[in-house]
C-alpha cells in the first residue's frame, strides 16, 4: 500500500499520530529494553511497521518509505524514545536502502528494496576486520574476479546481528594498487552462500549481539557490486548527513539520566548536596548537548552541508552518556556490582545494562579518538 503523506500533517499532528501508533501497536513487554533486541523478538514489530508503511521513515515515498522531512524524522525518533521503542534490525533500512538508492543499479533496487521493506531481507554490516578497526581502509578480505563472480576470502568482525541476517553488505579489497582506500569495493552478499561461517561473540553485557563472519572461497555474483569496482570507500562514506547528527542526539543519555534520577529519588539523594552537584553537572552536560544538537539539526533542516565539525556531537553525547552511567553505578552503592533488574529502596532499576551499553558508544562509528583526530585535522587545521 502507498503510505499516506505524513509531511502534509502539522508537526503536532504527526507527533500525536506517532504516539498513538506506538501505543496501539508496540508490544508492551519490549518497552525500554537497553540491550539490542534480537530479530526473533522484533520480527512481529518489523512486520507491523511494514504493514502500516512505517518501516522506512527515511526512504522517499516512491520507494515505499514515509519520506519524512527532517523535522518529522526527529519527532518520530523522539516519540520512539519516549515510548521506549526498540530498534528493529535496521541496517537494511538505514544503510543498504539509501546506498542502493544512490549507487545501486535498477535491478539491484528493484530486487532488494521491496524485500527490505517486507522484512524478508535482514542486513548485517561487514566492514571491520580483526586488523582493520579504526584503520578501516587497511582491510584485507579479498574479492577476486572469477568468471561472472567474485571469490571472497577473509574475516569480518563486530558484525551486529549477523546471526539474524539473511544478507551482508561487505567492503572487500579488489585492488592492492595505489592508495588503500582506492582498492576497496562494496558487495552485496547472501549470508546463505556456501563458505560463510557466522560465529556470535558474547559481549560484556552477556549478550550475543555481534559476530565474526568467515568467508572461505565464497562466490558472489559480480552483479552484486555496488557503485563500481574499487569505489567501495566512496559508497561506504556516503552516510546520510542525518545519521551523522542522529548519533549525537541527547536522547540515549537522557534515558540514563532518567534512570539515575529515579534511583536518586528512591534513595532520597536530592537532599544530598554532594550528589546534587554531581547530578546537576551531568544534567547540564546533556542540556547543553541539546543546544549543540539543535544547531546541527537546523543546518540539516535548511538543507545545508554538514562539515566535519559534527564529530564533536558524537564525542560529547557518548562521553556524557558514559559519565552518567558511571554515576549510576556509584549511586547504586553495593548494587553497582549486581546484574539484572533490581529493587533498590523501592525503585526498579537495571544498573549495569545502561553502564555496559554506554561503553561501545565511544568505540563504534569511529572511536572518540578518531573523532578527535578528525576535528584536529579538519576543523582546527592542526598539522599532522
Amino acid at each position, binding site marked *: 500500500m502507498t503510505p499516506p503523506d505524513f509531511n502534509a500533517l502539522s508537526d503536532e499532528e504527526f507527533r500525536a499520530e506517532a504516539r498513538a501508533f506506538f501505543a496501539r501497536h508496540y508490544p508492551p513487554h519490549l518497552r525500554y529494553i537497553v540491550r539490542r533486541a534480537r530479530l526473533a523478538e522484533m520480527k512481529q514489530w518489523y512486520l507491523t511497521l511494514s504493514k502500516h508503511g512505517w518501516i522506512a521513515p527515511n526512504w522517499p515515498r516512491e520507494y515505499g518509505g514515509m519520506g519524512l522531512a527532517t523535522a518529522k524524522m526527529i519527532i518520530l525518533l523522539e516519540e520512539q524514545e519516549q515510548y521506549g521503542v526498540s530498534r528493529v534490525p535496521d541496517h537494511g533500512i538505514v544503510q543498504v536502502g539509501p546506498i542502493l538508492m544512490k549507487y545501486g543499479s535498477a535491478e539491484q533496487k528493484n530486487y532488494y528494496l521491496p524485500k527490505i521493506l517486507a522484512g524478508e531481507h535482514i542486513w548485517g554490516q561487514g566492514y571491520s576486520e580483526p586488523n582493520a578497526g579504526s584503520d578501516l581502509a587497511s582491510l584485507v578480505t579479498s574479492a577476486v574476479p572469477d568468471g561472472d563472480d567474485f571469490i571472497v576470502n577473509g574475516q569480518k568482525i563486530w558484525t551486529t546481528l549477523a546471526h539474524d541476517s539473511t544478507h551482508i553488505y561487505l567492503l572487500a579489497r579488489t585492488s592492492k594498487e595505489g592508495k588503500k582506500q582506492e582498492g576497496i569495493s562494496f558487495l552485496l552478499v547472501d549470508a546463505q552462500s556456501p563458505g560463510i561461517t557466522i560465529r556470535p561473540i558474547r559481549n560484556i553485557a552477556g549478550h550475543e549481539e555481534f559476530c565474526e563472519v568467515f568467508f572461505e572461497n565464497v562466490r558472489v555474483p559480480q552483479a552484486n557490486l555496488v557503485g563500481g569496482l574499487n569505489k567501495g570507500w566512496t559508497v561506504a562514506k556516503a552516510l546520510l548527513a542525518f545519521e551523522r547528527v542522529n548519533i549525537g542526539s541527547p536522547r540515549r543519555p537522557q534515558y540514563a539520566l532518567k534512570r539515575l534520577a529515579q534511583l536518586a529519588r528512591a534513595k532520597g539523594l536530592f537532599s544530598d548536596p554532594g550528589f546534587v552537584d554531581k547530578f546537576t553537572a551531568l544534567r547540564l552536560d546533556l542540556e547543553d548537548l541539546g*543546544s549543540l544538537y539543535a544547531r546541527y539539526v537546523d543546518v540539516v533542516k535548511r538543507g545545508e552541508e554538514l562539515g566535519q565539525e559534527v564529530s564533536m556531537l558524537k564525542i560529547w553525547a557518548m562521553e556524557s552518556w558514559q559519565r552518567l552511567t558511571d554515576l549510576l553505578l556509584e549511586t547504586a552503592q553495593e548494587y553497582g556490582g549486581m546484574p539484572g533488574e533490581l529493587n533498590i529502596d523501592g525503585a526498579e532499576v537495571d544498573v549495569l545494562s545502561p553502564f555496559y551499553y554506554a561503553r561501545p558508544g565511544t568505540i563504534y562509528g569511529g572511536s572518540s579518538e578518531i573523532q578527535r583526530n578528525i576535528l584536529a585535522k579538519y576543523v582546527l*587545521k592542526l598539522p599532522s
Partner: protein
Amino acid sequence: MSAHSPDRAFANDDVRMLRDSVIDFVKRGTDIKRVRRLRGTQPGFERAVWRQMAEFGWLGILVPEQYGGLGLGCTEMAIVAAGTASALTPEPLTAAAVLAGGAIARGDNEALKRELLEALVAGSLIPALAWQERAGSLDTAAVATRAEPFEAAFKLNGSKNFVAGAAGADGFTVSAQTRDGLALYWVPADTNGLTLELQPLADGRATGVVRLSDVIVPEEHVIASPACAAAALQAALDTTLVMASAEMFGVMGRALDMSVDYMKTRVQFGKPIGSFQALAHRAVDLHIQRELSSAVLDDAVALFDSAAAPARLSAMASRVKARCSEAGLRITREAIQIHGAIGFTDEYDAGLYLKRAMTLSAWLGNAALHRRRYAALAAVDAE
C-alpha cells in the same frame, strides 16, 4: 554561524552597522597595549573610549527607544559584549549598560528613568549597581542595607560589596530594604555619607565596596518602589549573567585561537607541537567546550529576546553562566599549559586572558554556584 558572532548575516541595517562597529573597534579602537597600560590605574578605563562606545550606540542597545536607546535585544548586546571582551576591553560596558542601566530601565520612576537613561546612552553618565553584600549569595532579598523614611526623603545605611564598574561611576543604583520590601535608590557618587573603596581585581580592573552612612536620598531618586524593585533587580541580574557569559565566550575564543595558532608554529622535536596527538586532542576538547558555550549562549539570547517567564529566564541564565564560566576558565588555564613557560610570563597575553576569565567567572556566581541555582530552579524529570 552563531547569533553572537559578529560574522552573522543580519537583515536589519542598524544591526549590521552595530556589527561593523564591533569588528572595527576590536581591530583598531583598542589594543592589548592599552589594556596593559590601564592595568591597576584608576578608574582603569578611558572616558574617550567610553564616548566612542556611546557614539556607536552600544550603551543604548538595551535601552528602550523612548529613553533615547536603540531598543534592541540581547542578541545584539551579546555581539558587542563578546566582541569587546575578546580584546579585553576594560570599559565597564556590561556593568553600566546592562546591569545598572537594566535595573534603572525596569524601575517605576518615569522622570528619573528619562534623566538617567538618556545620560547613560549619551555616554555622559556611568551608573553602577550596588546590590550584593555577601560573597556567594545571589539572593536579591538577602540585604542588610536599610532605607528608613526621613522627612520627605529616605536615609540609607549599609554596605555593598563587589560593585562592578565602581571606579569611575558617576552614581550608584543601591538596593535597600524598607518596611514595604526591597527598593532601589539613585545615589550620585559625590553624595554625603557615601564612601567608595576600590579593591583590585586579578585582571587589573577594580571592584568597589560602597558604604552608606546616613545617606539622604530624596523621594524623586527612588528608582524602583517595592512594587517592582525585586523583579527589576532580578531581571537586570539575569540579563547580566547572559552578557557576562557572552564576554566569557569572547575571552575563551581568543585564548583558544591563540593556543591553536601557537600549536601550528611552535616547533619541538623537529615538528610543530600541534602534530602531537596528546596536544591535538586537548585542543579539540577545548574546542568542544567553546562550541557548547556558543550553542547555549545562542539559546540563552534567543530566550531572553522572547517573552519567556522570569523563572525560565533565571534558569537559563544560570545554565549559560555555568557553562561559559567553566569553559572559559578551562580554556584559558590550558592556554598557559599549551604555551609552556612563555605562557607563564607577564609579557605574553595568555596570562591576561586567564585573569579576565578568572574575574568573569567569579563575578555574579561561578559555575559551581550556578549549577546549584539551576538545580533549585529547574525541576528534575524522573518519570
